[in-house]
């Protein structure tokens, strides 16, 4: 398949990201699916670059897309919309039909608002608290499963239809954590029997060439997740530990570099 050339052939797009960040992966995957060239710069989230702080002063997070003219955009969903708008000749990720777009945007919102935080909560907790979080995840997955079975996405291989689209990128870049978290916490999140369509979708998504190029190896993810889990449990055991996503200003001084990283990576689904 011929790849569309980047419309700005002057200087490439530049992506500031973090290797374990699902939000970063969303943008990397989108760029690859669109055949857009880009430079990637890995950010050390424990010691953020001047460029990151300058380009994203509001949140100071990755991913950040820096355009050839030096202007920058932050927030993965915003960036994905931008890529569709700015490169109309390249493969479009959002559906063309306005109602389908509204549906895709809704489930993107759901993913970031409900599913992602629930999965994060499973990972950051133990015991009863974790059980409650697991139930949340299952409830959320059940909603998606229902849409695949008889709702908005009935009969589709991907949320985008025959091909991967916006919602696949959003949900997919993050869903790979499910198996990793299952392994690390010993909790079952995606039961192939309870969520057969979601399970099948995830398998098909992960088999896509551009997705394989984007998602880090399972070993690296497992390694990372184990370290993160240990640290989160240690923090939860200590005083005043909130949910990882709220941690930026409260990171304990003794925390290793991963501490600020959790807030930025905010593992989502």
């Amino acid at each position: 398949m011929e790849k569309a050339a980047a419309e700005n052939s002057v200087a490439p797009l530049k992506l500031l990201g973090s290797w374990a960040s699902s939000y970063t992966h969303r943008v990397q995957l989108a760029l690859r699916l669109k055949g857009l060239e880009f430079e990637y710069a890995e950010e050390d989230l424990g010691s953020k670059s001047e460029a990151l702080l300058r380009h994203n002063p509001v949140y100071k997070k990755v991913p950040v897309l820096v355009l050839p003219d030096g202007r920058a955009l932050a927030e993965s969903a915003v960036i994905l919309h931008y890529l569709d708008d700015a490169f109309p000749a390249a493969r479009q990720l959002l559906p063309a039909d306005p109602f389908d777009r509204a549906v895709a945007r809704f489930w993107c919102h759901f993913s970031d608002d409900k599913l992602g935080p629930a999965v994060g909560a499973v990972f950051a907790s133990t015991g009863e608290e974790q059980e409650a979080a697991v139930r949340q995840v299952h409830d959320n997955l059940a909603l998606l499963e229902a849409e695949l079975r008889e709702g908005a996405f009935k009969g589709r291989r991907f949320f985008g239809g025959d091909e991967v689209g916006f919602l696949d990128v959003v949900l997919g870049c993050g869903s790979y954590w499910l198996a990793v978290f299952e392994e690390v916490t010993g909790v079952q999140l995606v039961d192939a029997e309870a969520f057969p369509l979601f399970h099948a979708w995830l398998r098909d998504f992960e088999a896509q060439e551009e997705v394989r190029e984007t998602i880090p190896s399972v070993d690296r993810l497992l390694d990372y997740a184990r370290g993160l889990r240990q640290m989160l449990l240690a923090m939860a055991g200590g005083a005043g530990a909130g949910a990882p996503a709220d941690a930026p200003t409260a990171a304990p001084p003794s925390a290793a570099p991963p501490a600020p990283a959790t807030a930025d990576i905010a593992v989502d689904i």
Partner: protein
Amino acid sequence: MAGEKNVGLVLLDFWVSPFGQRCRIALAEKGLPYEYVEENIMAVKSDRLLRSNPVYKHIPVLLHDGRTITESLIILQHLDQVFPDTRPLLPADPYERAHARFWADYVDKKVYGSGSKMYTEPQMQTNIEMVDILKTLERELGEKEFFGGEHGFGFVDVALIPFTAWFESFDRYSFKKKSFDRYWGVKVAEVAPKLVSWAARCQERESVSNSLYSPEKVYDFAGMMRKDFGIE
């Protein structure tokens, strides 16, 4: 609002909801007729609401030719797309569009996120956050007449203006002493004077003045909510 031309729009809403108001303002800016349905969300939710938004069960919900769209910013984008001959809320330029989306999302994440804590959280932390948020918005507005800049009154303006009626509630609730020795007031006019002027400019637009309620009414509503949450 019975219209000459029925474009099949029904808005399920709740009078004081800032998210619902965004939709009302947008529809008015676009001159689109629609049926307004007041949902009594403080009591038992209607079947129609539960059917149209089973996931969140909240308003606003836009019914367009029987199909449902939920989430106010999604509704706004939908209106832009399906009614291209009406006044657009988002600019045409891709970067400017993205910039607008970013800031509207900021309003959702931060203004609503922090403001809604007034129901449940100790005052001091909320106030510190709110000062920061107001200053950030002030910086973003800068010398522009509207957040939409050259585009004029737009997406971000619509996203933010309904929350300004809540500023007075922030002001007033922040002066109440809780169990702290010190209190930290948020005087919006001192922290973000440009924002205050901007809000007044927005209020001059009929679409806005017809959709928003007085800060007094909002303050009363907020007080009721705080009672419900057992804060006072």
